[in-house]
Structure formats: structure tokens, C-alpha cells
């Protein structure tokens, strides 16, 4: 077992990147991602991490540099937030389409306007369809573990896709909490050297990302989608092996007191841990309630969700983002699709809350539970979703 120390989650994330022995970091600072990049630049400067640190002039350049690094077969890392992600958006889509493995931490923050440096998942949802493997971390330990997991999955010959790790900005990035480091020997066992299927090299010229017209474009894109869907088996086996090595077991969705529950909360990100305490409190009051935390966001774990909610009568889906003009939050939309016409399809109520880090407490989640119970008694379809804790609503 590695050392257990109290460290800010951003710093332990950077230490995990160091343990992954990356070759190049290209990043531009943006709140609340800054501490990750700062610590990495220190590690490179101190000689603790033998990597190139490229202080680029924008996030667009950060992702472009990472594309080049991965294309020559080296290990690239970047991280960003919100507006930075919006600026790099063009290249975010390109690296997944070009099957370039890398890891990016997204310190989740609202998109402007109005300007918010605080946490929610609106930036996450802006890249929902970018073709990356995407996972949510619920605490500092999970962030640490998933940096190593990220490279393991991304660089697998069966996957060859970039991996994005979602970490709630401030609420997680800026918290000091205990993290158990890995031993170097454990990292070496888990994460083999990166051997790309194709790499740019002057002696073996290849073209990457060239033009594809009507006769071939569809085939390329369908192959890309199939690669992402099929990555799930590799993701699950990478989690299994992680469990064998460090004893922490991860799954596409994590259940808490869910097996016999009539009602299930569904969450993404570190809301899940607070909701687990609301579940305890509601159970003490005799309510039949449990929790499912969505860890794997893309590829979406349809099958796992269908199985996990089999015995539930109703679901309370918590979204931390708005799909403007849509029929609820992005997580609820996917769940409704996943469960449509299932036998014993549960009734889904959807609550959007916690935008720009607005505090959502255990009592708030209890209120949400009670509100959901009222709604499903009257007419669950009357309103497909509602905003919780917003003045005037």
C-alpha cells in the first residue's frame, strides 16, 4: 500500500500524472484547474518529472500540442475548465476522431455568461458528443486512481481514444483530503509503456486526419462510434485489474443501498457522496430509497442502468446542467431513453440544482425526495423536470 497523505485534490491529481510518467504537458491556466497545472510545472521544474512542459498561449493550442504529442506516440496530459474547454472544442473532437490517446482532467465549471468560476456540469455537457471516454470522479482518491486508469484505457490497442476525467471544480479540486498513493511497482504493473498502433515518424510516413468525402466519411465515423461503444469491455477490465492491484473496485455505476429500494437517486460527480448521507437519513425515517452514482458517462452504460433499476418504482435524477429548451437535464434525457418501454419502467422525476456551486445540503436532497413523491402521486408527466432551490420557481 502506498503512503496515505492529506493533500489538495488538485495536487494529488498532478502527483498521479507524475506517476503516469507523462512525456509532455501542454496547458493554459484557468480557474479552478490552475493548481493542477501549477503543481505539474513545479514537478517538471524541480526535475521530479522528466517531461516537457509547454506553456501554450491558449487552450486551443494546448489540445493541438497534445494531438501532436500523442500522434508521435508519446504520453500527453492537459487539463482545463469551462471557457478553456470551449476554446479548445475544435481540437477536442479532432483527437478522438483521429484515435489519439491522452488524458485530460476537466475541472468542472459553468460556462459563461454570466461569468461563473464555480462548479456545475454545463462544460461537461458541451462536449458530451465529442467521442471521448468520459468518467466522473467522486473524491480525491478516485481522481488519483482514474489518471492511471485513463492512460491504461486510452492507450489500449483495443481502445485508442482519449479519456476525460470529470472533477467537480472547487468542491473537489480545492479540497484537502486523504489520498493513498500507489507504489511505483503497482503503477508499472498496471500501466505498460505506450505502444501506438500508428505513429508519425519521418522514416515511416503516414497521414492522419486527412479529408474524407461522401464515399468514406460515414464508414469512418461509424467505426469511431463502434470503437467508443466497444471500449466499455476494456474499461471494465481496466477497473477490475485496478481493483486487483490497489484494492479499490470501480464500476460503470456505483450503487448504495439500491438493491431493495423502491426509489433511487441517480447522480453524477461528488453530489453522490452527499446524497448517500441523505439516503441514510431517509432510511432512518423508514423510506425505501437508494442511490446509483453514474461513473461512466461515455460510453453510456445503458445495460448496467437497465439492470440496476429493475426493481425500482421511481427514479430521482439529479442534473447539474441545463439542456436549454430540452426535456430536462442531460442525465435524465439519457436515462429516459435507456428505460423507455422497459418492462416495469420506473417513473422518472428530474431535478436540476447546484448550478455555479450553489450549496445543496443533505436536507435539500431530502426535500427533493419528498417533492418527487408528491409529483409522482399527482401526475409525473405534468412537468418532466424542475429546478430546485431557484428563487421565483
Amino acid at each position, binding site marked *: 500500500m502506498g503512503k496515505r497523505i*492529506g493533500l489538495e485534490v488538485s495536487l494529488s491529481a498532478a502527483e498521479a500524472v507524475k506517476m503516469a510518467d507523462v512525456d509532455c504537458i501542454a496547458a493554459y491556466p484557468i480557474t479552478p484547474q490552475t493548481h493542477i497545472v501549477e503543481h505539474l510545472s513545479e514537478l517538471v521544474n524541480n526535475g521530479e518529472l522528466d517531461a516537457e512542459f509547454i506553456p501554450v498561449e491558449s487552450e486551443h493550442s494546448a489540445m493541438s500540442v497534445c494531438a501532436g504529442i500523442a500522434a508521435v506516440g508519446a504520453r500527453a496530459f492537459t487539463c482545463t475548465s469551462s471557457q478553456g474547454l470551449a476554446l479548445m472544442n475544435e481540437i477536442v473532437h479532432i483527437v478522438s476522431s483521429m484515435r489519439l490517446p491522452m488524458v485530460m482532467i476537466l475541472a468542472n465549471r459553468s460556462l459563461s455568461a454570466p461569468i461563473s*468560476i464555480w462548479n456545475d456540469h454545463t462544460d461537461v455537457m458541451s462536449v458530451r458528443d465529442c467521442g471521448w471516454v468520459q468518467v466522473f470522479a467522486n473524491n480525491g482518491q478516485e481522481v488519483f486512481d482514474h489518471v492511471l486508469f485513463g492512460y491504461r484505457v486510452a492507450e489500449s490497442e483495443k481502445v485508442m481514444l482519449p479519456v476525460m476525467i470529470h472533477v467537480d471544480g472547487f468542491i473537489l479540486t480545492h479540497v*484537502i483530503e*486523504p489520498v493513498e498513493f500507489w507504489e511505483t511497482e503497482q503503477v508499472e504493473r498496471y500501466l505498460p509503456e505506450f505502444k501506438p498502433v500508428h505513429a508519425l515518424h519521418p522514416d515511416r510516413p503516414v497521414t492522419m486526419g486527412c479529408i474524407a468525402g461522401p464515399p468514406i466519411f460515414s464508414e469512418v465515423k461509424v467505426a469511431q462510434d463502434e470503437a467508443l461503444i466497444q471500449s466499455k469491455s476494456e474499461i471494465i477490465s481496466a477497473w477490475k485489474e485496478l481493483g486487483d492491484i490497489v484494492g479499490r473496485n470501480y464500476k460503470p455505476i456505483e450503487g448504495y443501498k439500491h438493491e431493495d429500494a423502491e426509489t433511487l437517486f441517480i447522480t453524477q460527480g461528488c453530489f453522490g457522496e452527499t446524497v448517500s448521507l441523505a439516503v441514510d437519513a431517509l432510511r432512518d425515517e423508514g423510506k425505501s430509497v437508494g442511490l446509483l452514482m453514474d461513473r461512466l458517462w461515455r460510453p453510456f452504460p445503458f445495460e448496467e442502468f437497465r439492470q440496476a433499476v429493475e426493481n425500482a418504482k421511481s427514479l430521482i435524477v439529479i442534473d447539474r446542467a441545463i439542456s436549454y429548451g430540452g426535456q430536462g437535464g442531460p442525465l435524465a434525457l439519457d436515462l429516459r431513453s435507456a428505460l423507455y418501454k422497459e418492462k416495469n419502467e420506473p417513473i422518472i422525476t428530474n431535478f436540476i440544482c447546484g448550478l455555479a456551486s450553489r450549496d445543496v445540503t443533505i436536507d435539500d436532497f431530502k426535500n427533493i425526495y419528498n417533492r418527487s413523491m408528491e409529483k409522482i402521486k399527482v401526475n409525473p408527466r405534468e412537468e418532466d423536470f424542475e429546478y430546485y432551490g431557484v428563487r421565483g420557481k
Partner: protein
Amino acid sequence: MLEIRLHGRGGQGAVTSAELLAQAAIKEGKYGQAFPSFGPERRGAPVVAFCRIDEKQIKIRSNINEPDIVLVLDPSILRIVDVAAGLKGDGILVTNTKHKADEIRKELNLKCKLAVVNANGIAREELGLPITNTTMLGALLKAKAVVSPDSLIEPLRERFGRIAEKNIRAFKRAFKETELAF
């Protein structure tokens, strides 16, 4: 679980105090969680930081609204922020002030347990400037043994390097000089 809310002014090190406490708890094999009130930091403006300590994994990720202990790093905060807001019935308010506990109790109409120390005076003498974050940790531990004083020494050394000894002296003096009015 023990919940501590820290009040200070930007630049005084309230976040560092919370961090050192959490690290000391983690060194003791417990769970610790420390975090700032999230926002743009402004030197001199009132700021809040939070710390939780527990024997088991800390899952709650919301702010601390009903603290067991409130720690006030700057005496001028007492008159502009309701620092005792939400303090539990048997909670303790630990504050930096040059006044006696009775005077503070009367002036602010406080009913809670009080612990007071002239941290500005101690910090000026030991550090040469009124940065009270490490001094006030001494007062906190006198008021309640949330971690052992020895557990804090190592995090203090790691954090402050060559000025660690001065901070440790200030911390130990405050531990001795804090007046308890429970």
C-alpha cells in the same frame, strides 16, 4: 464528526489553518477534510474556510452551516460578520482578541462557550507580523483537543520550512495563554 468553521481576512491564512488541521487529523489515521469558501480571493476581505474531522470517511461535500467550533483569526471580523451563526448549542467560539472573554461575551451578546487569546500580540512578538493562522491553532487545541498538538508540528514544519520554528513557538504560546470561559 467534528465541524469547524474558520473566519479570517484574505491573506491571513484561514485556509492554511484548515488545511494544517485536516493534515494533522489524517496523520493520526483519521479522516480530515478542509476547503475554502470558493470564490475569487481578495486580500483583506472577510473569508471563510471549513474543516471536518471524523473517524470514518467524510462524504458530505456541502458547506458547514452548523459548526461545533468557530475559529476567528481577526478581531475586526467579530463586529461585521455574525461569526456565531448556526453554532451548535454546546459549540465553542474561539477568537483572537485583546479583550477578556467576559467583555467579548457582553459586547456581542454571546451565550456560547468562549475561548479568547491575544493572537495579534503573540504573532507580532513571535513572527514579527500579525498573521495569526498558526497562533490561533494553539488556541483551538486548548479549547478542544480536536487533534493532538504533536500531530500539528510536522505539518507546520512541512508548510513553513525555515520560519516553522517561529510559528511553532506562536502556536505553543497561544495554547498556554488562551483563556477559556465555558
